């Protein structure tokens, strides 16, 4: 852990992600606490950043066209965007680890079927699938999570499959089998814990990806629905007021880019530390 923080990339990534998570968790404390509140719209709309509205309330990043405080929405949006990202990566991890582990440990027709399925899913155009799934059902946060999770497990499954296959031939696994360990137990207790290092890296990179895609879907109006703020639908509403209030679109974009960079750098730093030999292959 200290080695990770000594790496400048790792330190930057960890600090950015931690501060975003802290802000999101402490949202009522660091903001006005009401992301969807619309008070005196005429007097409070389009207040420029770092200035106060007609009622003397200070707005660090200004207000949008309904007079809602952009900073408050940004922080509450972080809850949604980070939450959706983390949960969907979690779904991908569960699916990917399960499929990869089974395909790697049980050779034969099961493995072939699962690998075929993975390769097939990998070659599907992800965004087309996302669009279909998100547009055909009633848009909601839960839908976005499941859709992102269901379309993001393939890379992880491949990684886990490769790891499990090499580990399964190692002496300590043979030993575990020799003392009478049942296959499932050997897989879960002995193989998987050793196979998870590259998965952590993939999860960090996947988080950035999931957050970007969530924002993209919300931007197209297919993701998280207003007035619930998410970074994507904030950008979408900022698009309509780009001329008179550009900060509404700029703020969530900057936040998103920072988080994605943090994920990428943290992932890179982790990879170099966990396994220096794969440095450039997986990017």
């Amino acid at each position, binding site marked *: 852990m200290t080695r990770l923080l000594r790496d400048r990339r790792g330190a930057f990534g960890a600090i950015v992600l931690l501060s975003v998570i802290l802000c999101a968790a402490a949202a009522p404390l660091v903001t006005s606490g009401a992301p969807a509140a619309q008070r005196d719209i005429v007097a409070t709309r389009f207040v420029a950043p770092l200035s106060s509205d007609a009622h003397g309330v200070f707005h660090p990043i200004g207000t949008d066209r309904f007079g809602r405080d952009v900073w408050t929405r940004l922080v509450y949006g972080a809850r949604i965007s980070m939450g959706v990202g983390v949960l969907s990566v979690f779904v991908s991890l569960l699916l990917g680890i399960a499929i990869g582990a089974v395909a790697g440990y049980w050779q034969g027709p099961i493995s072939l079927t699962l690998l075929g399925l993975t390769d*097939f899913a990998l*070659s599907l*155009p992800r965004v*087309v699938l996302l*669009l*279909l799934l998100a547009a055909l059902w*009633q848009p909601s946060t839960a839908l976005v999570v499941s859709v992102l999770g269901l379309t993001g497990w393939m890379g992880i499954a491949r990684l886990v499959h490769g790891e499990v296959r090499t580990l399964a031939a190692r002496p300590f696994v043979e030993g575990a089998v020799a003392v009478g360990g049942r296959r499932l137990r050997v897989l879960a207790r002995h193989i998987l814990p050793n196979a998870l290092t590259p998965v952590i890296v993939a999860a960090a990179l996947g988080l950035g990806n999931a957050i970007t895609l969530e924002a993209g879907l919300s931007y*197209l109006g297919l993701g998280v629905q207003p007035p619930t703020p998410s970074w994507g639908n904030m950008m979408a509403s900022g*698009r309509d007021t780009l001329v008179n209030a550009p900060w509404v679109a700029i703020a969530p974009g900057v936040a998103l880019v920072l988080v*994605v960079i943090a994920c990428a750098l943290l992932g890179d730093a982790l990879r170099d530390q966990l396994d220096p030999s794969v440095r450039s292959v997986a990017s």
Partner: protein
Amino acid sequence: MFARLGQRLLTGSAVVLGVVILTFLLLHVAPGDPVRLMLGPTATPEQLAAQRRALDLDKPLPSQFASWVGRFARGDWGTSIAKGRPVRAVLGAAWPATVRLVALSLLLSYLLGLAVGVVQAARSGSRTDTLLSVTSVTLFAIPGYWLGLMLVLVFTYWARLLPAFGAAGFDSDFLTGGAFVADRLRHLILPLATLTVIGIGGAARFVRGAMLDTLHQPFIMTARAKGLAQRRVIGRHALRNALTPIVILLGLSLPALFSGAVFVEAVFAWPGVGRVLVEAVQARDYPVVMAATAVSAVLVVAGNMLADLLAAWLDPRVRSAAA
């Protein structure tokens, strides 16, 4: 070589077929009725039933699918439910715009990314390398729809230099010759720049890695020991060998680029397949969605195959590994 081509063709068609079946199933499992959307809330049950019969939506699913595949293969792609125009005309007008955008940005971002990555690898560890690394990570992290908005903000609203929308407009129909080309180019600049800038970030990162891997190999040491100039070592020996993974990545990045294009087309109202697809999905326009997904799957698979063949042509080892 031919065996490889045949195998790729086979798996490629399997993927396209899979995409089409999946799309078909999803469309029919999902809630939402195109006929109801078409006729509006005042339609009587009899009218709904008649329309359904007219569109063949009352038949069992397998027979609907089989008849769709048959008609699609014969070139009869049906009529758009929402627009009333033949699907072929809708897509025929859209796909050149997408291919133009995607192909140009792929070319530009790889050429520039190659240059940046090679410079970085040649001076790895230097200030320049770090600076360029930070830049490429940042560029790669920017979502296309947001970068597009920012470019519109700067170049359209603030600098008043370039048009944001209107690539699909009729204005250009009245222009001829040079003025027509100039108008097309002006509309192309912002969407192309959006996709390309992001692409450069990704390409540079990968090229740097591939070059560094190659530079650490013994034959580079031999080349250096022979007394070759740095320029020649990098250009002739390292780059030539690093090119194979780069070309393969080029093919693999096609789906991502196409995905990016879907969002970028939405931002710039670019009249491409992505926009047609988004509109059609929202309108439950079954025939258009089916054809558009089929076409985009074919584009992606074909791009992958092209990259694969290119890699085999570049690198004899890939060729023999397949045989």
